[in-house]
């Protein structure tokens, strides 16, 4: 059987606490600018932790006339606006019925449900609480008339969405796919993680011996996917492989040995037609919870074998918090930008090594390196795991 045609990442758009376009996002990752601040948009005084990666003001779009009053939708539209500034998606570029949209989310439109149940605004706001409402709003805003999907593999959703989008292209169900992930900071999710005592009062310190938990962030990240022959001359890179797996172990904690994550990584590499020895760089989930970072390290050691200590691994969650459904897409974009610019962003706040986390996590400052092949890993509630294999252009 011949190998399927490669899927190119033609363009990308981001809305994050560290920048509302690719240039600002990339520059902040390299310089270590922080997107963490006190949360101002909703009350947090009763919570143990009231900080996170909050976007204070959406600056990219000035008029929201055509966009519902839904923050998740607006983050998505803002990211899409950057995307279409690079590749206009009008009828001249693509027949609308051949443009598909696949988004991943951990929370969907849950804040709309919070607001409606609190009696804020019209009751029709409840319709926006459905998990696929923000994705539907994005589809309408784009004028896409092809398949529109929402997937939810918790905090691995941004990886799953890219993988499903690529498969739709390989099977000819669309000619272009806008794919990615999003999630917002709202009281619902802050209360939840606060109750689980997952949030840190310290800095987020992935792989550091003193790591004590995560902070949440909000973001939207989208990529435009096309078959290689339709991608034009200067794509950002290629999505070679994807897998999403389930642990079947625990509803909220990862499998203690990371078996599901390892399976996802091996399946994604197999789909890409490459082996662990080909991996130049790993973008880890790296939440800075004691369990996650130890498990992820063990998985990477098993996967990469004797090469493991020499393969750079980073986590960008200290910079803007864990952006849940957006995280894996942002990290995939970061992998491709690292290849393009010849720099790997550092893992911030990693200062005291942990003997159980003994890989090269790119501490301190950005590393001059040009990874060709990257592996990006993600985990989420429900034992969800995601892995992407990306190749820089």
């Amino acid at each position, binding site marked *: 059987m011949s190998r399927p045609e490669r899927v190119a990442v033609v363009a990308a758009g981001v809305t994050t606490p560290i920048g509302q376009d690719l240039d600002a996002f990339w520059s902040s990752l390299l310089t270590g600018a922080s997107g963490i601040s006190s949360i101002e948009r909703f009350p947090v005084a009763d919570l143990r932790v009231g900080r996170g990666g909050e976007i204070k003001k959406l600056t990219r779009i000035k008029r929201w006339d055509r966009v519902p009053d839904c923050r998740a939708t607006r983050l998505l539209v803002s990211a899409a606006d950057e995307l279409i500034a690079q590749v206009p998606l009008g009828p001249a570029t693509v027949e609308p*019925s*051949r443009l598909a949209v696949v988004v991943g989310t*951990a929370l*969907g439109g*849950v804040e709309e*449900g*919070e607001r409606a*149940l609190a009696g804020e605004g019209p*009751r029709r706001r*409840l*319709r926006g*609480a*459905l*998990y*696929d409402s923000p994705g*539907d709003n994005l589809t309408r805003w784009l004028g896409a*008339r*092809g*398949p*529109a*999907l*929402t*997937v*939810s*593999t*918790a905090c691995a959703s941004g990886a*799953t969405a890219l993988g*499903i989008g690529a*498969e739709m292209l390989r*099977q*000819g*169900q*669309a000619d272009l796919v806008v794919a990615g992930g999003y999630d917002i900071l709202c009281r*619902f999710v802050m*209360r*939840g*993680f606060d*109750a*689980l005592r997952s949030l840190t009062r310290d800095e987020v310190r992935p792989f550091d011996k003193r790591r004590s938990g995560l902070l949440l962030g909000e973001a939207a990240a989208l990529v435009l996917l096309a078959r290689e022959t339709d991608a034009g001359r200067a794509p950002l890179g290629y999505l070679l492989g994807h*897998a*999403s*797996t*389930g*642990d*079947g*172990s*625990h*509803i*909220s904690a990862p499998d203690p040995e990371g*078996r*599901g994550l390892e*399976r996802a990584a091996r*399946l994604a590499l197999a*789909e890409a037609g490459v082996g662990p020895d080909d991996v130049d760089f790993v973008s880890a989930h790296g939440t800075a919870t004691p369990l996650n970072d130890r498990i992820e390290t063990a998985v990477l050691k098993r996967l990469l074998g004797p090469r493991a200590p020499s393969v750079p691994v980073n986590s960008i969650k200290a910079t803007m918090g864990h952006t849940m459904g957006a995280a894996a897409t942002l990290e995939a974009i970061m992998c491709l930008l690292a290849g393009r610019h010849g720099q790997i962003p550092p893992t911030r706040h990693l200062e005291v090594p942990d003997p159980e986390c003994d890989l090269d996590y790119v501490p301190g400052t950005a590393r001059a390196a040009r990874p060709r092949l990257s592996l990006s890993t993600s985990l*989420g*509630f*429900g*034992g*969800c795991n995601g892995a992407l294999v990306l190749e820089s252009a």
Partner: protein
Amino acid sequence: MSAAAGIPAPAVRAVGLCSGWGTGVAALPADACAAAGGRSLVGLGRPAVQGERFRRATRECLWALAAVEAMLEDGRAERAAIAGERTALLFVSAAVYGASNRAFIEGTGGGTHFAYTAPAVVPAEAAIEYRLRGPSVLFIGGAPAALRAIWYAATLLAARACDRALVLGVETFEECADLYARARRRTAPPLVEAAACLWLEPGDGRLVLQSARGRSRGDGARRLGEMLAVGPLAEVALRRHAGYSDPLADPLGLTGAWRGEVTNLIFTKGAG
């Protein structure tokens, strides 16, 4: 219609169905509105599942387990037949998270309840119970999400990423009944709580997924009631019960509509 290349079609090894109408296919009505007798919602109640592990589990999680159990019964198979990393689990739902999200928002769920607000936890309970450790994806939406999940199951089987794929769907409405009552037309078919699970294996023929913008006639909802993402799975159960050898194929394939998108899953005979 947007064109789509075909992929090898899976065969249906077994189907489990639990619905507000009763256990299995035999309980399904010929006309949902008549059978509902004026009720706008036909509920499932809470299944009797034993075990300390399920003390905190939500009703929707328990129905996921019940659907898998019903599928094993239909396939006359033991749990060991589906356990392991060669079984994929694709979950579909439009609204299963409504109950747990509302409970958490209104403060009736408690802090530890938060994990259950993630839709991924519903299939996770089934994955833990039956040791399902292969590929796993959740498709959110109405009937097209189920068709998309069957398509993705076929894709995984064709790529040999798994040996069998389970497509599990759960829809519960009771806890948000007052909210649905405001949003739905009085003449609409009743909402029917349901959970179903398909066991798919490599089969013969080809499968094509097509989608277009438009409206569907909604025949399935008129007959079975509105089961959202579980609707197409219930249709497959009906066909299997009626003796069709290819329940995904006969008589004309499956259709589902949601948010202005009509999706067709079309089976053609021929080399897989």
